[in-house]
């Protein structure tokens, strides 16, 4: 199964996302932001980093890159897409996911090992989890505070599109402890924490992050 990982100028965790795909049993495919070429991948990961230096707004410039136009079109046709951290910001800026990520409430970049509670185990990226499961995933961001109007957040919750919530402490002041959300069809998921940093005992606080990648591989196989 071919999982594309997009590299934008300033992407940092692209190598990590590719490693996660590989360790989960998939074939990582390098995608370049400037090409109009999705290389027939079965799913796409938008990795963490500081695309375009976070200039203008985090994710704003990358959301308008050539390849993102193809990603938006393909996502509308059902291509599974995962946005991690800066990738989540790009998905929000591109209109594939609702809400916005703003400066952390405490104004610092914060990197810690974070407990998340899984609220949806039926999205394309979370079928290997169970609802209510607590997973340990690193979070690291300066602009990770998820915000939306109360009405929008109510609607999002009503539609069951909150996929993960922070537990045992909210690292960035996100509304309603929201760590990740999904598109209506559950095939596009974005979250601030970094599952690609929790895939090996040697280098991560857990291996819980592998579940994202094994989930999508199963979805792709059965599709």
């Amino acid at each position, binding site marked *: 199964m071919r999982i594309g990982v997009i590299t934008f100028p300033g992407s940092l965790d692209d190598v990590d996302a590719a490693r996660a795909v590989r360790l989960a049993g998939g074939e990582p495919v390098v995608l370049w932001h400037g090409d109009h070429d999705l290389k027939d991948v079965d799913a796409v990961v938008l990795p963490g980093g500081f695309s375009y*230096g976070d200039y203008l707004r985090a994710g704003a410039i990358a959301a308008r890159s050539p390849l993102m136009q193809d990603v938006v079109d393909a996502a509308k046709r059902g291509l599974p897409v995962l946005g991690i951290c800066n990738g989540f910001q790009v998905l929000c800026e591109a209109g594939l996911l609702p809400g916005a990520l703003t400066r952390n409430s405490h104004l610092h970049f914060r990197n*810690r090992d974070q407990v998340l509670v899984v609220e949806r185990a039926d999205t394309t990226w979370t079928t290997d989890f169970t609802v209510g499961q607590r997973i340990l995933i690193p979070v690291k961001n300066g602009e990770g505070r998820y915000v939306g109007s109360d009405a929008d957040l109510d609607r999002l919750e009503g539609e069951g599109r909150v996929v993960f919530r922070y537990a045992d402490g909210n690292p960035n002041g996100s509304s309603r402890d929201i760590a990740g959300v999904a598109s209506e069809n559950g095939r596009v998921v974005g979250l601030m924490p970094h599952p690609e940093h929790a895939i090996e005992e040697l280098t991560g606080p857990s291996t819980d992050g592998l579940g994202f990648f094994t989930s999508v591989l199963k979805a792709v196989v059965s599709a």
Partner: protein
Amino acid sequence: MSEDGTAGQGSATAGLSELDTGPGRLRNRLDTVDLAASTPADEQPFAELGLKADEYARIKDILGRRPTTAELAMYSVMWSEHCSYKSSKVHLRQFGDLPPSEALLVGIGENAGVVDVGDGYAVTFKVESHNHPSYVEPYQGAATGVGGIVRDILTMGARPIAVMDSLRFGRADAPDTARVLPGVVAGVGGYGNCLGLPNIGGELLFDDCYAGNPLVNALCVGVMRHEDVRLAKAEGVGNKVILFGARTGGDGIGGVSVLASETFDAEGPAKRPAVQVGDPFTEKLLIEACLEIFAQDLVTGIQDLGGAGLSCATSELASAGTGGMHVDLDTVPLRDSTLTPAEILMSESQERMCAIVEPDKVEAFLAVCRKWDVRAAVIGEVTDGDRLTVDWHGERIVDVPPRTVAHEGPVYERPMARPADLDALQADDAARLPRPGTPAELQAHWLAVVSSPDGADKTWVTEQYDRYVRGNTVLAQPDDAGVVRIDEESNRGISLSLDGNGRYARLDPYAGAQLNLAEAYRNVAVSGAKPLAVTNCLNFGSPENPEVMWQFAEAVRGLADGCRELGLPVTGGNVSLYNQTGDVAINPTPVIGVLGVHDDVRTRIPTGWRTTGETVLLLGETRPEFGGSAWASVVHGHLGGKPPAVDLGAERALRNLLTALAGQGLVSSAHDLADGGLAQGLAESALRYGVGARLRLDGDAFTALFSESTARVVLTTSDPGGVKTTAAWAGVPVTELGTTGGEALAVEGLLELPLAELRAAWSATLPALFGGPEHSTPFTVPTGAVPTA
């Protein structure tokens, strides 16, 4: 090349407004080589530019005429203390005289030394200061300090893989510390995080002596294959000189150099910030572009632009090569079109590199730059002959032998004198200080040391750093050493530690340098790695003060002797002088970095206790040694006596033992004992995962807890017999301290310190000093709360 503005020279000058218009009556004309030759008697502001009269005379002697203003500017920055190492050079030679090491592929003299770590991998690492800029503008000063050292590593042909930072500030509760520290930490994090380099460790210490002169030392480490090592030299007549990266602006003029912004008068150009402004996004693109350029073998030589900017890069490249280079300054991409040629030559704008490229590879080179949106311009070429020439608007403004600029600057044997107060200081023995008289006092002192700003939890800082990016970080702060995997197939990896106790060095700079070396060596060994090589950042006061010069010379001698005894090469380093406020110098602070190699990082030893029921062992011997200790400093505000005895033989034995234990898999945790002694080591081991211990301290419990005797490690094992057998083989004394478990550090018959109380005190200190309300709730490590797959 150092970029530290602390290497100081005279104050800023009155002459800058004349820089490009020639002296005196000729000030409205471009000061060309021809003009200089025809107006030999014109006065030039050499003294204001920081040059001594004899140095200026030597420049005239070299050139056979007076220098042009552009030439004068180049010489003045390149002959400054931190570019020329003119006060330190005679001492630093001792590092070059160390016995040759098989591990050393590239030694001192290049941008960074290169070490063979096995399997065809080479590692380059270096630590450098950015002290003064960080005091003036904490965020940008620290950020560009990281940027500069990363480019040094990149220049060697390596992919940078991690950074570390060693930070020192004035008293933690001083108002100015609250101004400087948050900005420095945010700057180190802001730049490193955006570059995608994990921060794997460092130091954070406080002392009054750094109040007006904080120390910001940044380390970068990079990895490459042996055959990929690049050198900074310009060879091959006709090869092109390409400047790439950010455009050149007016920022940083006066950073490293003698020119400061106040010299601009009302009629001159606008005031320029003396501190450079960093753009890590551009540097990230520069890194990726460079690595692609290296992979396609498109350069014959490369140099980063740091302190002294183009002046340094062109003269060093030419000097190290065949000698000839011509640059057409009009081709340099500018951010500010009003810059004068001397300003362009001296600008310290960040994120720039200079490459030497064969003509038929120029197009491929430029194509890689285009792919990564990196600006690049051919600004000159390698010429035959031995002159560096620079033209501006078709006129020659520089014509110099590059070696005289870059490598043949002045060298001084500064007078030295043992500090007059040293005897009294050493006689003021910390052993005479009042000790805790009751178990309750002992417990109070324990808490005081552990919750002091030096001993306290550093999470407030390290949370602001990305330690995960690139996915190869095996250990990072608060572990004793940072450990990074460099090969995912073989699990080969490296280990690094940075240590620099200034109190010890103040009491005895020779021993102090060795103690810092020993601590860094021990930290690397504690992780299970084999120590391979040493880098250093020598932070001292003014070399014009004979007592400071003596401290410097003693520290260098101590470090060189220590490295000889441990069999380690010094691969390079950085000297930062003039770290003082008024006449008062900082404590001499030689920060020592040791690099080690892990054949298999899976055998690394972490620091914290995870498991109940394991035996706690103390390796090494504890003597009543309190001089310069954390206890004396925290409890009594005292600095006096002699530092703990250096025993490098014992350090070696300990290292052999730890390597063996790591290989046997006999140890579940190990923690080096240094500042704060066993008290600090036990607290950090227990708090890491919330596992306490029941302990027996035979003999004097105070000495056991607070002595800072060296060559000691506390470890835990489920096989104490096995460890003891191996320790006997290695000749390392072992003391059984007790068993892990419970929710307290309990010392039999004396005291029981609940971990909750310890954690509250330990983790509240920095947030209370520097954090807002959201930082005041200690965050506990959630490990254990979640079952991992």
